[in-house]
């Protein structure tokens, strides 16, 4: 941990932004519950609606806190447990997590190829799952209603790596926001409009995790057309083989 008196201006700014971004939704939860508690509403249906809104907000806050905890964990790399993982199994798991959200918005998930076979990487299951959950959730959140997510993977034999491509038909990222995409606490102009509660840690965490796995992540985006995220992860070499 950084000692308080050794915090840089950047650290202080990050903490202040984090405090604000956590406090705003927390205040909204208190506001929602306060109107019930102080008797401003008595209609049971309305009370249920307000409690539902408060619960949703509290769940968003919980996700934000998970992000902070993960960020802390990533800062101490010795805590990361690495194992041999079939990346295709992680992709399947991630897709099954995100699919209900896609269905809910009428978004089609299309595969260019079946997720069958074995492509092993050395990695941390929880964090790699988080990477693809985050990318896919963004592809759902920032997509158009009834849009599409196209999913593909391939083996880059010369690099001995797996390349996973996730494209959406969403709002896209403005060119002048592209350099901010992976920065901590940054949200693009378009993103701010669509997301209800986010620390802006998501993609900076994703990038950190990928880099900790000696991989790469790239973004190609056109406003109004969509965004493609390309993740490259090194494969484990097979004994005497090519991968």
């Amino acid at each position, binding site marked *: 941990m950084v000692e308080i008196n050794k915090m840089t201006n950047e650290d202080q700014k990050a903490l*202040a932004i984090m*405090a*604000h971004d956590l*406090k*705003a*939704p*927390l*205040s*909204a939860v*208190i*506001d*929602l519950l*306060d*109107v019930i508690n*102080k008797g*401003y*509403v008595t209609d049971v249906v309305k009370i249920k609606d*307000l409690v539902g*809104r*408060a619960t949703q*907000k509290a769940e968003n806050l919980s996700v934000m806190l998970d992000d902070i905890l993960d960020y802390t964990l990533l800062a101490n790399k010795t805590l990361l447990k690495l194992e041999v993982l079939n990346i295709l199994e992680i992709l399947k798991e991630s897709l099954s997590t995100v699919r209900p959200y896609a269905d809910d918005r009428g978004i089609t998930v299309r595969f260019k190829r079946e997720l069958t076979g074995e492509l092993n990487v050395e990695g941390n299951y929880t964090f790699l799952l988080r990477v693809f959950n985050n990318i896919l959730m963004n592809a759902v959140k920032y997509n158009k209603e009834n849009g599409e997510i196209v999913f593909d993977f391939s083996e880059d034999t010369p690099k001995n790596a797996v390349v996973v491509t996730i494209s959406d038909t969403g709002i896209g990222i403005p060119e002048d926001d592209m350099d901010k995409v992976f920065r901590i606490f940054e949200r693009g*102009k378009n993103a*701010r*409009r669509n997301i*209800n509660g986010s620390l802006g840690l998501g993609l900076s965490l994703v990038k950190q995790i990928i880099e900790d796995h000696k991989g790469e992540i790239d973004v190609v985006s056109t406003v109004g057309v969509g965004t493609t995220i390309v993740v490259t992860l090194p494969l484990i070499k097979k004994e005497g083989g090519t991968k």
Partner: protein
Amino acid sequence: MSFKILVVDDDIDVLESRKIVLEHNNYDVETATNIVVAEEILNKEKIDLILLDVMMEKDSDGFVFAQNVKSNEKFKDIPIILATAVNQRTKFRFDIEEDGDFLPVEKFMEKPIDPDDLIVTIRGLLLK
């Protein structure tokens, strides 16, 4: 005739809770999730007080809107309550004494805003 209050906040849940409290106290309420809609309402309706969130789509939106209102001869007398989630303990605290010059609003309130306190504050400002 009841007073009409414009509530501006990009969080629809905050708008909902404010609307309930204000309507319960017999105020008419207009809501806007961004300053473009807020300005449209301001030009169309007779607004008696504005309750404004400081951080909206862009972090400067609340400030810009407050400045626009106060520099417009037609609207400058409408009292503004600026609601902020920025904690008093951070260096980003706002204070009517210190920040009143560059943020010409009548009152700062820190979120979460107690509904009873909000009503007392609004009554006080509307009586002036």
